[in-house]
């Protein structure tokens, strides 16, 4: 039985406001959900009759598909709305869009938006459950949860595990959610990247900072390698992609020189030959495709834990 303290409430906006028990409850719930995706009929009736809108103001393929699989495997009805091309250009606000959807009687909204805080803004204004699928530089909680599930599956624990996040920390909501989630469950977290791509005061979040990738690899058990957005080069954060690969790229030579077997994660999509070499991405240390598999299970767990539910009815229903 999940105790009241582990209840997530109405929304999942980020990992920062969650306590260790709540995060653990999501990861523990994701475990049995993995098996559903291995069945011949990959469907359970949990969210039958629920309507979920995937509201994407930013292009996304894998996160949206992962959410959509999770929703469909729980029997929800789903609608995908790619807003960048439609109403926003006509000047409609985020809240107007959401209220219009609500007027069609929906139950949950999965939102991706380029503005930090967009998910919370929406959650405070509509009664539906809101799940943040990435808002600006703020958080991308389900990505961090699937990263944590993958690490925990492979190493058997998160407490005391040394995880280094490599790359563009400054612009990364994935990095931020990982830092909150991992530190809350007792992992040691470090970041490594060009000084231009490390946020000022990052050390105050309780993370180590490495300026050299060799030192980071020496220290870490897990590397979470972030995608280098190609726009960053144009904006002058890094000189060239080759230069970035030479200094920070995760190459086979670097991985082989590590003092222990590394676990290599990447949230995708990868720039092969830039932040990670193909040898490593497809090599024995990579768990990148396990992350994708776990992503569906974690999102199923979040949908299950948030959907419906009135605590006051729990007691009377238990002894049925």
């Amino acid at each position, binding site marked *: 039985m*999940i105790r009241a303290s582990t*209840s997530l409430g109405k929304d999942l906006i980020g990992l920062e406001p969650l306590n260790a028990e709540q995060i653990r409850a999501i990861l523990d719930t994701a475990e049995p959900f993995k098996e559903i995706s291995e069945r011949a009929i990959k469907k359970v009736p949990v969210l039958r009759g629920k309507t979920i809108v995937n509201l994407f103001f930013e292009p996304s393929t894998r996160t949206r598909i992962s959410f959509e699989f999770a929703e469909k495997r729980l029997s929800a009805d789903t609608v995908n709305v790619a807003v960048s091309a439609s109403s926003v250009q006509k000047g409609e606000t985020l809240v107007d869009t959401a209220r219009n959807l609500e007027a069609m009687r929906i139950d949950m909204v999965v939102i991706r938006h380029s503005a930090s805080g967009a998910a919370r803004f929406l959650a405070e204004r509509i009664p539906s459950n809101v799940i943040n699928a990435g808002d600006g530089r703020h958080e991308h909680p389900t990505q961090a949860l699937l990263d944590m599930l993958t690490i925990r599956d492979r190493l058997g624990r998160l407490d005391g595990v040394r995880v280094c996040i490599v790359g563009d920390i400054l612009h990364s909501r994935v990095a931020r959610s990982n830092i909150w989630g991992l530190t809350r469950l007792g992992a040691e977290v470090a970041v490594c990247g060009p000084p231009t791509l490390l946020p000022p005061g990052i050390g105050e979040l309780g993370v180590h900072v490495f300026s050299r990738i060799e030192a980071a690899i020496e220290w870490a058990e897990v590397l979470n390698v972030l995608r280098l957005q190609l726009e960053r080069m144009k904006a002058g954060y890094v000189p060239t992609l080759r230069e970035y690969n030479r200094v920070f790229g995760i190459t086979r030579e670097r991985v082989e020189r590590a003092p222990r077997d590394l676990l290599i994660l990447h949230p995708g999509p990868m720039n092969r030959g830039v932040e990670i070499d193909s040898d490593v991405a497809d090599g024995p240390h990579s768990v990148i495709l396990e992350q994708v598999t776990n992503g569906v299970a974690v999102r199923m767990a979040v949908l299950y*834990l948030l959907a419906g539910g009135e605590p006051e009815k729990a007691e009377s229903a238990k002894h049925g």
Partner: protein
Amino acid sequence: MHAPRRQLVMDERAVERALARMARELVERNDGVAGLSLIGIHRRGIDLAERIADEIERAEGVRPPVGTLDITLYRDDLMAIGPRPVVGETRLPSGGVDGRAVVIVDDVAYTGRTARAAMDELADFGRPARIYLCVLIDRGGRELPIQPDVVGRVVDAAPGERVDVLVPEVDGRLAVELVPAEPPGAEPEPGTAEVP
């Protein structure tokens, strides 16, 4: 503390004797062990299914495959309750369920809703040749037209009362106890709640 007085219905030996008889009854009904598979309902049905399989092996020399089923996601009241119950492991018996005689093993038959959910879930896994329902305790109070095929003991329990089946893997001992209705206003005993 007004913890209600628990009343012993079956001790360890009584449960063991009942399970041995239930095992013989299942084999007799199925005309042997061939094609028989057991599925224990999470959590206490799993332990009971393993014990029945042990008894069948002792008598027949062949152990039927045993699987586990968590019916939480098939409950008809799931969206009405919260916080969300923890979901346990579902693992089909080796050989699957297609064409098998599948025995659903649970601790207590009450409303019939667990058996309904278990049958719905089994139907999503395949098409058993037939399904038996086997429970250690039938306490009556059915809300659906579902009756167990093999029963350890019938216990006459009033609506507010609870019948607890205790198994070593979960509770540290093997027994059946009757818990009388709680006096109004009393806190429900923690940790003893089970899905219906």
